[in-house]
């Protein structure tokens, strides 16, 4: 099977994730979509790694997973904090930081 198919699936997942980030307003879903984007990247990395026959891409993918785990931890923590303070669970309402 050529690398093309892997990349096609990866691009599809990435596009779904990016679309989700842009259109959804619930921060939980935004986080989920972010995860999708990261995993699409991981898939591409693993695909390339297999194509070249060495382990570098896999190492990258592992690192991305670790970073993703951290990011989710922080993100979920933020969402819990927002919920506790009875703030609206909506990214469009959170727009105090502006010029």
């Amino acid at each position, binding site marked *: 099977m050529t690398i093309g198919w892997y990349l096609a699936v990866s691009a599809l997942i990435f596009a779904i994730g990016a679309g989700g980030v*842009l259109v959804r307003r619930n921060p939980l879903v935004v986080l989920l979509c972010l995860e999708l984007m990261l995993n699409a990247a991981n898939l591409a990395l693993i695909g390339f790694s297999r194509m070249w026959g060495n382990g570098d891409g896999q190492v990258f993918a592992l690192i991305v997973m670790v970073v993703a785990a951290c990011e989710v931890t922080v993100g979920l923590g933020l969402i819990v904090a927002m919920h506790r303070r009875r703030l609206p669970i909506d*990214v*469009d309402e*959170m*727009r*105090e930081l502006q*010029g």
Partner: protein
Amino acid sequence: MSATTAAWLVLAAPLAGTIVVGALFNRLPGRSAGWVGTSAIALSFIFALITLAKLQQQTPAHRELTSTLWTIAGTVGVDARATILVDPLSVLMICVVAGVSTLIHLYSVSYLQGDRGYSRFFAYLNFFVFSMLLLVLAGNFILLIVGWAFVGAASYMLISFWYRRTTATSAGIKAFVINVLGDIGLVLGTFFIFRHTHTFDLVASFRAAPHVFASGSGDVTAGCLLLLVGAFAKSAQIPLHTWLPDAMEGPTPVSALIHAATMVTAGVYLIARMHPLFQLAPAAGDVGAIVGALTLLIAGTIGLAATDLKRVIAYSTMSQIGYMIMGVSVGAYTAGLFHLMTHAFFKALLFMAAGSLISAMGGVQSLNRMSGLRRALPFTFAAFLIGGLALSGLPPFSGFFSKDSILLFVAGRGGWHWALYVAGYLGAFLTGLYTFRMIFRAFLGEPCPEAAELIDHGHLFHPAAPTNPANGELEDTDVGFPGPDHVIAERAIPMRVAMSLLAVLAIAGGIVSIPKTTSWLDNFLAPTFADSTIASHTTNNLLYLGLILGAAISLVSIATAYVLWVARPALAPAIAARLRPLTTLFEHKWYFDELIDALVVRPGAWFGRFAQNTFERVVVNGLLIGGSTGLVRAGSALVRGTQSGLLRVYAGLMLVGIAGVGLYFLLQS
């Protein structure tokens, strides 16, 4: 060790002292800062003596050594190097400066002991001495200017040392501003000379000067006149003298240092050092001589009317520096430097005695409050008397020989110089008069309460609350005020040692150049001034006339002072009342402060306000600042619109951006 190495170490010792005392200012216990500072200067003095010994080993023709440590800036046409020049003139100066400064430091160890700024004082004091040594050792104009400016800065720090007193801070600012005026003169003068000689090196400049300047040409005269402006500001000559009496706001050892060793003599040294240039500009020399003569007379008359003890001594310094400036300007270099040396001894002694006296009075400096302190302060009285006799030029004290050697040379020049000669002896009469007015009023007569307390109970007077002697204000007693302790020489060994040594020098300092007997100083300085072209036709008759005149005038002036202020005390006020306009003039210091205020300060302030209202407000504030801020504001308003705060818009922009960059690179490849 060669002479130049020793000379570099002369500079290194006080600098090291400054750094050590300054860096460890709060770690040095008790009086150790004072001892560190004193030993640094003493070390410098020892190196100065080594330099002297090594220099004397050379043949007279080779007693002009230079040494370069590094190049400050060496490009085409500019040769600024860290060079020192070791020749008899600079060696004489470093010996006098370091020697007298050592004694002043020793005196300060006790005198300042109650001050909370003790370490700071010694760090400044060491820096002051370092600056002066740098000035006199400088082998090129650049280093000379650096030393010159350092001296000004150090004097500012020390005059304003008691910075809780507004009078002290304003006096410091005044001294600094007038000195900067002198710095400008020096720098511009240097430039006039550099333009033609194309070198900053002193020795090379002097060699080149006769070839590039025609005698009396405009440029060399302008250069020398500008150098004179520098000399006048530093040496407190009319009309740039007003800072000197105000500088009395500093601690008394500082006054001693400024007047005896480190500052006001710099102008005299400058003229003596630049003598090859001044000989090409006779007009500049004449200006210096006339200003010196005027200063010595005017300062003498003000000294006669001043009531502040330290200010009387300050005016006497001005007057004596007038003699020196007059001397070196007419070509009496050796005589001028001889007077510089003896003056350093007796003036330092007088100030030390005055410091002890002021301590006994609990900080009061007014002569009107002092009387009958002779029995209370026997040692101080003896020191003051020796200093006063040397100042008045009574034989065989040192001042007699040095003053007369200047006036002898002046007389030998003939022509209009006779007017200077007469002014010199008139000044000598005034000197004796105001010196002994001060001594008689302070030490003779009925003991004042402070003196009586000291005699009867052995108890040093301390005021209930410290006040500023200049304006009577209550003092802020935080750091930066004189401290609660007062120290008199009778009770402090370091002060007595310093004063005794200076008293010996003040009595016997004249021994280095007694007419017809010794000529050590003349022989020593001969190599430096061998190229002097100014001849003075002195005869034996002139010499004897001068010696007799000098002795007679000093005796007559002391006798007059005795009559006026001791024998018939009612006479002095009567004469003062009879000559009301004259005494008013003297009491107001010839209105020099008012004149400078009206001619310089007020127009300057008016122009400043005018410029602020027009140029500053319209051009600077409106156009430059308003224009540039407006530009930035408009630009930022444009960009600010994109900062909506909407997370999803940011994410979209980021995505578009990354996609754009990716596309760009894809299309490129």
